[in-house]
Each structure stands twice: as structure tokens, then as C-alpha cells.
């Protein structure tokens, strides 16, 4: 058995036509242990959603491999592995936009019962009803009778997102990829939804790949897990959540942490900023040489950072960083 429930190995995904190709995800590798939470954090366009889609095989990697329980999901000829269905049932996704991810012409009962009946997880429609009621209770949608015959448009954003969570749970997945699952939900309801997801971790042992642009949410949800920071297609830092929040080593992670506005007036107005050399995110069509962050990095060293691309290197316990300067400061050579 592999150490990881699910693993990304050298994932690469390119998009485009013959004229212009962009590499949205460029050699991303990580593993998630059973019951663990891993957060992918980064700004729009950094490839976090594309990575999430490859983990759930909604997108096929251009090269690289996804492993579920140590077994590859794709065969060398590019076709699905024989036990693809086990994987498919084992890894589910919750999409960002609850207004777009539920079929508007199906009732909540139909949305939740279809996967149950399709995969023959229940023996009869009556049993399907019992299970749907159970699922709605799990995600805190009650009284259940009020919801069964409703359509998505009759629900609020928060309620819809709970239905999405319930739908992901229909097939008893062992891993859920949550792609900005709480971003479109109002602050007052956000914590409730996060707590439901956390409860599933405790009661059902669900493993999470949690994708978000919001560092505060990542910190709250994955305090006992790990955070990977992505920048233009690659992971630049990967560490346990407290380490990353309190002792980030990559200049990009530092810049993000310093820039986040905080819901605390004195704290946010007195926080030290990290001045970047440029505000522009590089175009995927014209990526900078060497380290991709070098045109913006305040610690840029000419002749090193713009020439040689730093690799993700272990600098401290469980703390990986892709930065020449950070590696030297940590006394690790040859990064």
C-alpha cells in the first residue's frame, strides 16, 4: 500500500491551439494521506483549479500520473485503468459556483437519488429516499420534507452549496476535492459550511484537497493539515499549515501573507508589507526565465534567480520551498 490515499506525480497540463500553447500546470507533485487535509492556495490563473480537476480526472493530464491508493488512474496508452470506477466513486468534487453546478430542472431529491440508483448503492427507490433524507440531515438541511421537492432556484446560495456537499457524499467518497467551495457563500454562513466539511472529516474520515484563494479560510480549515502555495503553474512552497502561516520562507508566500487585509483594524493597519518589484503577474505565453517569480521578487539576485529555476527542496521538517535565496539562508546547497 502506498503512503498516500491520492497522489499527483509530475502533473503537467497544457491548453491551447497549434498557434499558442500555455502550460497551466507545470510539474506538480504532492500526496495526501488518508484523513488529511491539503490546501492549494494561490491567485487566479495559478493552476489550482486545473490541478483539482486532474486529481478528479475531470481533466486528463498532458503528462504525469494520478495515483489512487497507490495505483495509477491512467494506463500508459492513455486509457482509463481497469479499476477506474473504484477511483471515480472514491474521489468526488464540490464546485465553486452552487448556482451553476446543480441541474436547475431537477428536484433536490432527484439530484441526490440519481447517483445512488445509478451506482446501485441502494436496492430500491424507498431505500434511496431513506438515504437522501440521511444525507440532507448530514449537511444540516432541515426540515427535510421542505427540501426534497424543491428546485435549486428555490434555495439560497448557502443551501445550494450544502446540496452540492450532500451530492458529493452520495457515493461515500474517501476523498473530496473542494474547489473554492465556500468562496461564493456569505461570511455568516461560511463558517457553518466549513464546520460541516470538518465534521465529515471527523465522522467519516474524509480526506480533502481544499482549493482556495483565501489564506484565512485555508488556515482555519487546514490547521492540522498542510498548505501548498502555487504560483503560475507550480508549487513554490509546501508546509504544515502553522509553519506556512507563521514562518513562510518563499518570498511569494511572504508577500501574500503580508498583503492580506485582516478583519482587525489595528492588526491590519500596522502589519508590515513586503514591497514587490512589479505588480504584474507574468503572462503564461511569455514566462520569465529561471525562477518565475524573479521579476517581482524583492530578494532577486541577478545571475542566479533569472538563470536557474529553483526546485522544491526540503529546508526544514516537512517544509519544502522552491527558492535559491531561502535555500541558502537555510544552509541547504544546490537548490
Amino acid at each position, binding site marked *: 500500500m502506498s503512503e498516500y490515499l491520492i497522489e499527483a506525480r509530475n502533473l503537467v497540463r497544457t491548453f491551447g491551439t497549434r498557434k499558442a500553447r500555455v502550460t497551466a500546470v507545470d510539474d506538480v507533485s504532492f500526496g495526501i494521506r488518508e484523513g488529511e487535509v491539503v490546501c492549494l492556495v494561490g*491567485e*487566479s490563473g495559478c493552476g489550482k483549479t486545473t490541478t483539482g480537476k486532474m486529481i478528479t480526472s475531470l481533466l486528463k493530464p498532458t503528462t504525469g500520473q494520478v495515483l489512487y491508493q497507490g495505483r495509477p488512474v491512467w494506463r500508459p496508452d492513455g486509457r482509463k485503468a481497469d479499476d477506474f470506477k473504484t477511483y471515480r466513486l472514491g474521489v468526488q468534487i464540490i464546485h465553486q459556483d452552487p448556482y451553476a453546478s446543480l441541474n436547475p430542472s431537477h428536484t433536490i431529491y432527484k439530484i441526490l437519488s440519481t447517483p445512488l440508483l445509478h451506482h446501485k448503492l441502494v436496492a430500491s427507490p424507498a431505500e434511496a429516499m431513506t438515504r437522501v433524507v440521511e444525507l440532507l440531515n448530514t449537511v444540516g438541511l432541515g426540515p427535510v420534507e421542505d427540501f426534497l421537492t424543491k428546485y435549486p432556484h428555490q434555495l*439560497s*446560495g*448557502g*443551501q445550494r452549496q450544502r446540496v452540492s456537499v450532500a451530492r458529493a457524499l452520495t457515493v461515500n467518497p474517501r476523498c473530496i476535492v473542494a474547489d473554492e467551495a465556500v468562496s461564493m457563500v*456569505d*461570511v*455568516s*454562513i*461560511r*463558517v*457553518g459550511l*466549513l*464546520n460541516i466539511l470538518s465534521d465529515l472529516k471527523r465522522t467519516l474520515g474524509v480526506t480533502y484537497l481544499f482549493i482556495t*484563494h483565501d*489564506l*484565512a*479560510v485555508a*488556515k*482555519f480549515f487546514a*490547521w492540522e493539515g498542510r498548505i501548498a502555495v502555487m504560483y503560475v503553474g507550480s508549487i513554490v512552497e509546501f508546509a504544515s499549515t*502553522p509553519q506556512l*502561516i507563521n514562518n513562510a520562507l518563499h518570498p511569494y508566500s*511572504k*508577500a*501574500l*501573507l*503580508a*498583503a*492580506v*487585509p*485582516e*478583519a*482587525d*483594524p*489595528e*492588526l*491590519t*493597519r*500596522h*502589519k*508590515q*508589507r513586503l514591497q*514587490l518589484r512589479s*505588480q504584474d*503577474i507574468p503572462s503564461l505565453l511569455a514566462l520569465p526565465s529561471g525562477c518565475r517569480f524573479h521579476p517581482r521578487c524583492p530578494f532577486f539576485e541577478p545571475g542566479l534567480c533569472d538563470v536557474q529555476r529553483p526546485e522544491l527542496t526540503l529546508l526544514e521538517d516537512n517544509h519544502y520551498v522552491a527558492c535559491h535565496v531561502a535555500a541558502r539562508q537555510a544552509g541547504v546547497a544546490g537548490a
Partner: protein
Amino acid sequence: METVTTLGPTSPPLSVRDLWVEYRAERGLVKAVRGVSFDLASEESLALIGESGCGKTTLGVALIRLLVKTARIRQGEVIYRRDGRAVDVLGLNPRELRRFRWRECAMVFQSALNAFNPVLRIWDQIHDTAQAHGMVSRDEVRRRAMQLLEQVQLDPRRVIDAYSHELSGGMRQRVLLAMSLLLNPQVLILDEPTTALDILTQRTIIDLLRRLKADVGFSMIFISHDLSTAAELADRVATMYAGTIVEIGPVNDIFYRPAHPYTLGLIRAVPTVTGEFEELRSIPGAPPDLIDPPEGCKFHPRCPYATPQCRTEEPVLQPYYGETHAVACFNVARVQQDTGDLGARFSQSLGDSIL
């Protein structure tokens, strides 16, 4: 313009009194803004915070009377003052209203992408606006436009002849800001100015707004569901719930000494990045239906402090702490007992500037 009174130079540029706005809907009247009153001081920055559907945007739009046809201002006053003269915005005729908008009070709308005409260059849109408001000299408009674009840290030559789709989200937001300042308004209303922007872009806009406000000296109302933007930019914060202001006060009072259970609930629901793990609590339930709102305090069905009185009687805004902090709640004393930990956070964040 019709002059109502003559006032001293210190009187606030904007005073809203008992403003009510309703929307006609099939099921009945949506009471989106219910009796809102506040003053906006000169060069002050006021944040309106609250969940979606609490009436923040309706209130902002009502101040410049840009409401949709199905909406109606049932009653109230919006008094605008400049140079010792005062007018009721709600009484302006269409010609006066045109002068008032943009020249006196400009609004930057949510979603910078949709605020531009996609088939016009930025320059044409700026020029159109200037012409419509009586700036006839093309050269002068061009000079002013270049200067403003520079002020928002854009490269004017690159931006002015571009189409909106050629600009990034942060650049568009900055162009909008520049355009809103074109006619030197005294009051700026910003609807979710940093929503949907990335962290580093958000930081640029926040810093820019702070600097512009200091340099140009306008007053600003900004609408945000995001408490952290309010914590960054506001001098005062007003919490809205079910169409009315339930608490208003200086930013530090609101964050460290909230007196309304809803404000307290919002603050406890938002994590901070800096520091150790903290427990968060969500506010149970959902905002009320504004067509058929509950009796009494509109927050009582979700409120842990609710008493029988709250179910029948709606509290009004009353001074709470000094003259500047007001709250609409019967149970302030009990809420106050529970805000001690926020005060501790205050002293802690003053003690060490982290990172």
C-alpha cells in the same frame, strides 16, 4: 439649485434622514431600506457592512437616485451640502440631478468588468462623460485624464487607447476610480471595490484608495461584505441588517467593542490569517424575507440573546458608548459581557506588529 439652508463649513457633506426604499415584486413590496439615517463627515470614510440582501447596495444607489424602475423612495431626506449650501437630493429635477451625479457625488460600481462599454476605448468613455458634464475642451479633458490615470498608478499612454477587455481586473478597477474622480466629486460611493480581485491586486487598490483620499480629499462611502476591507479603510463602520442600520460607530469600537449581536456574529465568523488557530462561530439561520419580515427586531430569529421583548418590539438606534457609537438592541449589556475576548485581541494586536 434650490437652497434649503445656509450652514457653516463644518457641516457634513451628506446627511441621510429616515430613508425608505421599496421594490415592487409579484409577492408584494420588498422593504429594502427601512428608515436609514446617518451623516457622512467631510473627508470621512464610512463602511456599510452586512450580508447580501441586507440593503447596502440599494442604499448606495438610492443616494444618487439611480434606482431601477420598480423601486420607489417612499420617504426620507438626502441632504447634500457644499460651500455652505444645502439641497435635498430627492427633490432635484432631472437637470439638477444630472449635475449632482458625478460632479458632486460619483459611484464606482461593483464588477469593474461590466462597468465599461466593450466597444469603446477608455479615452472615448472618459471623453463622453466629460462632454456630457460640460467639459468642452478636448485637450483639457485629455490632460486631466492622463493626470488621473497617472494618479491611480497606471501608464496613461498604454491604458487610454485600450479597450476594457485588454486590461486586467485590477487595472479596470483603477481606471474606474480615475473616471469617478474626473469631475472632482466631493462624495465617492464605492460598491464592493475589492471583491473578486486577487490578494495582491486587492492590496494595491486598498493602498491606492487610502492615498487618493488623503491627496484629493473626498468623503467616501464604501459597501462591502468583507469585514477586512472595512477594517483597513473605514473611519466609521455601519452594520446593516434587513434594510436598516443596526449599529454604527468608529472602526475600532465596532471591531473591539461591538454591541449588536449581529456585528459580534459577523466578527466571530471571520478568521484572521496572522496568529494562532481560533475557533469561529457561524450565525445560525438566514437573513429574513424583506417582503414579510418578522415582527419586532428583524434579527431575533437568529439571535442568541433574544427575549420576548425582541419578538414584538423593534429597537431603534441609540447612543451606546460616547456620542459616536450607536446601536439598536435591547440586550446591549449582555452582548457587552461576551465581547471581552475581542478587547484582548485589540491589546494583543497593538502589542506586536507581526511579520
